[in-house]
């Protein structure tokens, strides 16, 4: 707890403002224009994103090399918070909105908040990675499970959800309070991945039960979950964004990243230009860069995020991803199917199930076989 408090302090130093609510940390970062001193008034491109600023900054750098007179104001926050801010503050909307919460992004586009832009770079990316020339998918990322190999104690790595359930059962109380999950009520991405699991798998109910019985811890973002994993606060982290998890696996040998072999959910980070963007032209240039071979190459090589384009080469390209052990790739379709994830009634049902499982204290351990 102390460590996270210190981390919080650091964030205060980096950012100009941090919400009092620790759950909705928002970081503001300015990337000043490259013209020093600026000869004339510099343009500002405002971007809201749920991408780690270290991961996205190579792309900003490339953008500013092309357009040196542009400063970028990046607001990084959790997906749900970004969505709510977008809805509630119509006067301060960004020029570009980046988020992996496909359902929330889609809802905004469907509701007419997105500006249509026929980007010339759309030919570089697959046809089903954009919707109506309003919402542009630019990454192709697996949802993974990460675990601390210490918990295995010599046992084989669980490759599928079924094997993961078996592991949880066999370790039983060792895993009490040691499983990390996204708080689906706080994280848009967490809700999306969890709801999609509900559509796909029969093991969903049993997973939920197992998580509930072991009092899984809830996190709002991938980084804090990975931190917890690193520090041994948790042993298993379910439904993480692959990109960050793989990076940590490379750094710390005992953290294993698994793409479940029964099926592997794939999400796209999406971008759109709000209709009331202040700088639509700058925003369009940013979308062009994002989808261009150059931008996609930066993602695959510098950001450590698998890009949507199949043509790009690099350590994090789609080619390399498919060489790792994985199940059937199940990309979440970028289309009207996503509306179901935003349905209030559906959400209440899922929250209800979730709350029942998570916040009911198990009467005894005999609930487990």
């Amino acid at each position, binding site marked *: 707890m102390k460590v996270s408090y210190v981390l919080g302090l650091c964030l205060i130093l980096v950012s100009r403002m941090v919400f009092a609510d620790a759950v909705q940390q928002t970081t503001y970062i300015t990337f000043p224009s490259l013209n020093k001193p600026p000869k004339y008034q510099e343009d500002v491109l405002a971007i809201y994103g749920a991408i780690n600023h270290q991961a996205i900054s190579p792309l900003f750098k490339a953008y500013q090399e092309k357009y040196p007179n542009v400063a970028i104001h990046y607001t990084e926050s959790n997906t749900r918070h970004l969505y709510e801010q977008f809805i509630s503050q119509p006067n301060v909307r960004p020029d570009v909105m980046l988020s992996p919460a496909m359902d929330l992004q889609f809802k905004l586009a*469907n509701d*007419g908040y997105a500006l249509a832009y026929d980007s010339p770079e759309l030919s570089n990316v697959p046809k089903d990675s954009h919707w109506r020339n309003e919402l542009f998918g630019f990454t192709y990322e697996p949802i993974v499970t990460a675990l601390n190999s210490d918990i295995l104690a010599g046992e084989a790595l669980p490759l599928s959800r079924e094997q993961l359930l078996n592991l949880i059962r066999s370790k039983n109380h060792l895993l009490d309070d040691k499983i990390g999950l996204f708080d689906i009520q706080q994280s848009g991405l967490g809700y999306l991945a969890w709801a999609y699991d509900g559509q796909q798998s029969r093991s969903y109910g049993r997973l939920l039960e197992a998580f509930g019985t072991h009092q899984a811890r809830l996190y709002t973002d991938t980084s804090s979950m990975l931190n917890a994993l690193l520090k041994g606060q948790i042993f298993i982290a379910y439904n993480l964004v692959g990109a960050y998890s793989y990076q940590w696996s490379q750094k710390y040998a005992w953290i294993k990243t698994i793409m479940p072999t029964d099926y592997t959910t794939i999400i796209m980070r999406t971008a759109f230009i709000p209709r009331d963007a202040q700088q639509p032209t700058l925003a369009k240039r940013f979308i062009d860069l994002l989808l261009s071979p150059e931008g996609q190459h930066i993602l695959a090589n510098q950001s450590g995020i698998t890009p949507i384009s199949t043509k790009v080469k690099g350590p994090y390209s789609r080619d390399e991803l498919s060489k790792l052990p994985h199940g059937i790739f199940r990309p979440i379709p970028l*289309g*009207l199917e996503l509306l179901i994830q935003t349905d209030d*009634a559906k959400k209440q049902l899922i929250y209800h199930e979730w709350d029942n499982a998570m916040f009911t204290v198990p009467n005894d351990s005999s609930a487990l076989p």
Partner: protein
Amino acid sequence: MAKATTSIRRQLILMVATVLIVINVVALWSAHIYANRAAKESYDRLLYGSALQMAENINILDSQFFIDLPVSAFETLALSTSDRAFYSIMNGQYQVLTGYKDLPNIPFTQLLQQSSEKEKFIPIYYEAMYRGETVRFVALGKRLLEADSVNDVFIIVGQTLDARRAAATEISQMALQFVTLFFFITLLLLLFVIWRVLQPLQAIKQAITERSPQELSPLEANVPSEIAPLLKSINYFMAQLDNTLSRLKRFTAEAAHQIRTPLAGLNSQAQNALDETDEVLRQKQLQHILESSNVLTNTVNQLLSRATLTHRYQSHPFSPVSLDHVTKETCRELVVWALEQQVEIEYLGDIQVTINGDEFALKQMLQNIIENAIKYSPKGSVVEVELMVMDELSETSVVLQIRDQGIGVPDQDKEHIFEYFYRSPDNFASGSGIGLSIAKEVAEHHDARFHLKDNQPTGLIVEVIFPQRKGLSYES
């Protein structure tokens, strides 16, 4: 020359093209309407399907609505990949249970009516503007039954129109392609047919052009029955032309001959007169020269008058002519000359007749006939000219008779007498030989019949019968 009216080919092509264009435009228009309806119906079904799937998953338990919308409902909507979709589920009090809270123009009255009628709910389709776009909505009710209560919920699903428009455009474009192809194929076929049908005309033209100007024999060509009358007319005309042409040739040859003979006579008589020493004989010979010269003058005059008449036929329209007046005048003009020949002219008849005709030509006719009669009359005889009305077979006609008491014309010569320069072998009187033929031509030009009869005891009656027709009037 007659001005050529628009060519048949061009008219046919124009008409065919117009008809084709009209047909094709109508076809395209219907295809467009059909395409729109087809697209509308198929996408309405998708919309309805989606609403049904949503309805399927709405239940009620202990007065609590239990809504678990299926993914398939949204997957159905997602079939139109580029359309926005909106939905809302409401209870009977129009409270939104889930979905969009501000959908426009919801047909509450109709839904309520269906609800109160307790009948099966039928989908209501409508269009409305929502979030800046036209949206097609379906509103559907569902009755939820519990033991002690009945609750209705309303499902409203809407989608923008892009996919419909795209589908309609696709069908329309296919129709357009088909119609264009059809248009050009039909046009080509019809052009071929037109060419084929007009081919005989072309053939006739070709046949005529290839002929030498002298060749006037009938055209031989196989033509369709519609063109046959034309060919027949052409052939008839050519026969006429051939006839006229040969007559003209003969006339010219005869005229030349007729002029050359008296000239040769004149020549030799003049020579003789020069050589003659006897004054009395020379006087006689000079007299002969004068007579021959008169004959020649007469012949040339006749030829000229005929040429004049031919010209008049073509250029002068008819006008009312008082026939009795013309006849009397002609008689009066000729009476002196007749008396020199010791022949009397007697005009009989007291009727007044007006006909439609050419006064000059009629006068020429009378002159020629009367002169002829005088010429062949023995000295001391009378030429009778009579104008009378004849009733015959309920037809009233005016008859003009010129009777002489000369030797008459034998029957075998009667049919030849009108030929140019025909002279009876026994005829010794001087004459050009074209007077009567001119007279006959004038008569025929006035639609009158021209007869030769024998007079009693001897002599010839020339009878011209003007039939009753418009323009003829008389009084006794």
